């Protein structure tokens, strides 16, 4: 996962901030309950977003629960339910697939570390893939498609992003209702596309150095390893189009308790992340914390 799907905290109310935090902590606790302590390390913001997206009906009230990071004070956690379990399963599956991917890519030490972590999460992965076989099949299929596109040095950013976007779209399979699923599929497709393209933009300098595949290197004519002003504008526009499509789907979704948080993530969070990645300030944020 990328950690790009974030809300704009300053635009959330105090109560919404508390809800968001409680969902994150609830997901962390749910991971522990389903997969044991070490699965807690997999909790992330992208999957917290998935929890809010798939949520239906009445607002769940938070419970007080123990947090090993702050052992002397209890934290608010949203209670586990069907959606939380699903988000936890997806967290395990997607994290493990990411580790599997890292075993082939990066440098020697990273490969070793990824192999080691994979062994740590082997049983969790087996359990999650048994519980969510359909989703896991799509993940495997689309990642295989993605690596074959990478090998072919695919020149279309749309086609390269399509594999990852289709992968994320599978998470809408939680819903049985067709219309609801269609809306969330479109939303997740475009969030996936946003993730893939934003990641490509962030990795561009690194991939230029190492010669690794990056769709932007083949789609645009780079100057000194960077996009020209005109290409950059076009690229930002196409990613922005995905945010718009995600917003168009969000507007059709029925009201839910935490809709304001979803609204904030898509309307405020994603554009802010895209722009901070583009101007290079994304990873610098939070330094000095």
């Amino acid at each position: 996962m990328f950690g790009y799907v974030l809300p704009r905290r300053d635009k959330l109310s105090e109560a919404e901030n508390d809800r968001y935090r409680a969902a994150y902590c609830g997901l962390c606790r749910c991971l522990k309950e389903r997969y044991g302590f070490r699965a807690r390390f997999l909790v992330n913001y992208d999957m917290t977003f998935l929890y809010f997206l798939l949520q239906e009906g009445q607002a769940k009230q938070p419970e007080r629960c123990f947090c090993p990071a702050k052992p002397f004070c209890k934290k608010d956690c949203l209670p586990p339910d069907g959606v939380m379990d699903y988000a936890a399963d997806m967290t395990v599956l997607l994290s493990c697939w990411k580790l599997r991917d890292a075993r082939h890519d990066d440098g020697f030490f990273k490969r070793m570390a990824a192999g080691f972590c994979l062994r740590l999460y082997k049983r969790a992965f087996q359990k999650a893939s048994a519980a969510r076989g359909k989703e896991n099949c799509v993940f495997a299929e689309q990642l295989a498609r993605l690596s074959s596109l990478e090998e072919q040095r695919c020149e279309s950013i749309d086609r390269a992003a399509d594999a990852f976007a289709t992968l994320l779209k599978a998470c809408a399979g939680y819903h049985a209702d067709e219309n609801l699923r269609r809306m969330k599929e479109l939303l997740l497709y475009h969030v996936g596309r946003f993730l893939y393209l934003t990641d490509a933009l962030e990795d561009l300098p690194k991939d230029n150095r190492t010669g690794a595949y990056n769709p932007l290197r083949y789609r645009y004519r780079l100057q000194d390893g960077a996009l020209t002003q005109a290409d950059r504008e076009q690229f930002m526009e196409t990613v922005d189009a995905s945010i718009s499509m995600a917003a168009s789907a969000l507007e059709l979704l029925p009201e839910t308790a935490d809709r304001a948080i979803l609204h904030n993530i898509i309307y405020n969070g994603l554009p802010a992340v895209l722009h901070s990645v583009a101007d290079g300030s994304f990873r610098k944020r939070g330094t000095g914390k």
Partner: protein
Amino acid sequence: MKDPYEVLGVPHGTSEEEIKKAYRELARKYHPDNYANNPLADLAQEKMKEINEAYDMLTKGGTTDSGSSYSNSSGYSGSLGEVRRLIQLGNLDGAEAKLNAIANHNAEWYYLRGVIAQRRGWMDEAAQNFRIAANMEPTNFEYTRAAGTAGNGGYTYRQTQYDNSGTDDLCNCCSTLMCLNCLCNGCR
């Protein structure tokens, strides 16, 4: 039947002026133009219908169109008309195959290629094809509009000010799970 006040998102007993305002706001949001070439166009149309009905009910027989002006597929003929029909049916692969079999690449051909890409969510290819179509026939409103809105997929979400101050981690605790910072941080 849903409560019309609920559909328009206004409390019971709202003045007609306020109802009108809420209606206009919603009608702009779900307007078919916003969902042109969007795979969810049918759902937006349904929503629009619901809003129109609610408004009609509250204003007692006020006349609003129920989105029937939408749908521009009829009136086209020939093989490109067939492509349009397939797109309308959601058969994008079929439409693409048909399109690729046509040797004459005119402005409409590029436009339709753009529509297929847009329906798939392939915004970069959509924008490229719309631009070619608009360049070949700059007087065609359909093409120039598509080229103009390709950047936002047809749907405009309110642009917000971009600054990065708000994307700080909220509760980046579990990744540094066992850190001692818990001792100095208190409960937040």
